[in-house]
């Protein structure tokens, strides 16, 4: 085997050399009978980008991923990897690495055989195969596991092997279908960081599917939120969280109270910052529990919204405390505080009034695009 060939992924692991491909998806449509899984989806994923498709089940994120992998056959549209159109190309000719939710490791092969399988299919010689598998296994923190059987591995180890198998043949892009969803929370968070580091070292284009918004925020360069077969917003994690484009996104990413601003009690909410939108019946103010301050009655500062509420319940959760309250106008509101002694001492008791402040930079106005509500006319 020529030595240069084997430097590929290992070279990338060592030097961070960028071999990643741009993915261009245009006007993708897929219908299953009366159900529209993908409704005119267009998306460009940059070279080396970690893009997460986030959405509830049935939103089309898995269909989109399967269309990329070649296991779903869109009715129309185009998918290009680099300059190559892959619509209609059989899955095994797409050169895409995929990590499955169930890992899909072959139980009758050892760890080494699993990882070397894509190389074997590509006619790589035995010595080279073993060499490359060994190096990739080290890269995913699994050195020396070549001869283990799959059923001897823990969930986290299986996940690592599945990743190793998906990157060993230097695919143009890597797809991951909820690869961490079967693991417990602690391990999941550990592996999220590992994946992030691996992505940085490989520099590959990764398209990742999850329904876990926290995972999406942790891992992604950009997040595409999907709903009912469409991408409703695509943005960097911070932008997505701080400035959701719609009520659906605000509701799906993080917890938020969506306050109908036109109907809200003018005595409790200062709307001077909102301009014309303040009177729009479909405009909603995004109120996140951690962005609220509990302030005194006489607190008045520019750039703040103020809410008057009554405390219903205070729930201690270890690292945090949740204060459940009701606004004068009737909506329930939740405030999140840390659980330090001083904070706990200062918290109001159930039944007592509570004044809340929200800085305008910590909120945004969204249109209500949720079911049964007409969209905002522009």
């Amino acid at each position, binding site marked *: 085997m020529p030595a240069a060939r084997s430097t590929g992924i290992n070279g990338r692991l060592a030097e961070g050399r960028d071999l990643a491909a741009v993915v261009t998806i245009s006007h993708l449509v897929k219908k299953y009978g009366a159900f529209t899984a993908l409704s005119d989806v267009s998306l460009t994923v940059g070279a080396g980008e970690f893009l997460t498709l986030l959405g509830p089940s049935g939103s089309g994120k898995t269909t989109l991923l399967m269309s990329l*992998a*070649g*296991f779903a056959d869109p009715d129309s549209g185009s998918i290009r990897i680099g300059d190559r159109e892959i619509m209609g190309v*059989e*899955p*095994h000719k*797409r*050169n*895409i*690495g*995929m990590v*499955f*939710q*169930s890992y*899909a*490791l*072959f*139980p*009758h092969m050892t760890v080494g055989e699993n990882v070397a*399988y*894509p190389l074997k*299919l*590509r006619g790589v010689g035995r010595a080279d195969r073993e060499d490359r598998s060994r190096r990739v296994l080290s890269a995913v923190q699994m050195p020396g596991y070549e001869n283990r*059987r799959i*059923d*001897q591995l823990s969930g986290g180890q299986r996940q690592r092997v599945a990743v190793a*198998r*998906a990157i060993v*043949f230097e695919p143009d892009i890597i*797809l991951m279908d909820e690869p961490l969803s079967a693991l417990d929370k602690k391990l999941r968070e550990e592996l999220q960081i590992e994946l992030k580091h691996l992505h940085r070292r490989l520099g590959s284009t990764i398209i990742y599917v999850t329904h876990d918004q926290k995972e999406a925020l942790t891992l992604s360069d950009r997040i595409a939120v999907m709903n009912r077969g469409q991408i409703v917003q695509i943005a960097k994690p911070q932008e997505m969280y701080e400035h959701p484009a719609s009520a659906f996104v605000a509701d799906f990413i993080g917890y938020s109270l969506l306050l109908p601003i036109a109907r809200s009690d003018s005595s409790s909410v200062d709307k001077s910052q909102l301009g014309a939108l303040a009177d729009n019946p479909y405009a909603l103010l995004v109120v996140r529990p951690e962005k609220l301050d509990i302030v005194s009655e006489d607190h008045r500062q520019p750039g703040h919204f103020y809410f008057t509420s009554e405390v219903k319940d205070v729930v201690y959760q270890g690292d945090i405390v949740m204060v459940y309250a009701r606004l004068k106008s009737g909506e329930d509101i939740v405030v999140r505080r840390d659980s330090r002694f001083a904070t706990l001492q200062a918290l109001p008791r159930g039944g007592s009034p509570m004044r809340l402040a929200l800085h305008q930079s910590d909120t945004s106005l969204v249109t209500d695009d949720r079911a049964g509500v007409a969209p905002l006319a522009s």
Partner: protein
Amino acid sequence: MRRPAIGNLWLTPFAILVVLFLLAPVFVVIPMSFSDSNYLQFPPQVWSLRWYHSYFDAAEWMAATRTSLLAASCTVLLATPIGFLSAFAIRNMRGKAAAVLFGFLLLPQVVPVILLAIGVFFIYIRLRIVDSFLGIVLAHTALAVPFVVTTVSAGLKRFDFSLDQAARSLGASRFRAIFDVMLPQIRLSLFAGAIFAFVTSLDEVVVSLFIAGGDNTVLTRKMFLALRDQVDPTIAAISTLLIVVSVIAVGVFMLAVQRDNRRREENI
């Protein structure tokens, strides 16, 4: 071990009675085969192996045995792939079509075998393959396919199809993925189906009576005729040998299953 409830205690003797009833013919046939008598006698007065000699020394018994074993082997070679591919197709079908095809494939085992035999006989006359080896194998294959479809379908139900997708995403063609990943995973079901197919063919008598005569007489047909013409204790010896073959086949399968289970349990 959980102790059975008092109310269920009667089940044990009942089960023993059922098993005894089912096995009674075996307990009669095996001793009879070792008898020295000129006719079927139970219990035997004098023990001997003369009927085994009579079987192994008779050229026509040997010819029938060869035909039977060869036909059973060819049936396995045909029915196993056909059954596997059918089960695979059914697994990939949606909705009612799958159920309809499954039912259709089971028909040869549902239709009364005598009707099937008569039907096959008339078709074979047209095709001029009565008493031909090909005819026997085709008819036995039709009878064996339902068993293979059933066992392989059960195996495919447990098969995780994301393994198949994984293989293909890694660069394996559909065909290669089946060979490298699916077949190793469902090998026990395939093996069970193959054994069923083998035994079905070896054991089959009704259809063979119609279409498996002449030079291609199968063992069961010859036994049936021997029983009708004169009660020849040789068939007790042959029956015993057939029982041994069946027990070995099932035994080998059980061992394979057990080994597989043990390997799985070891690693949980």
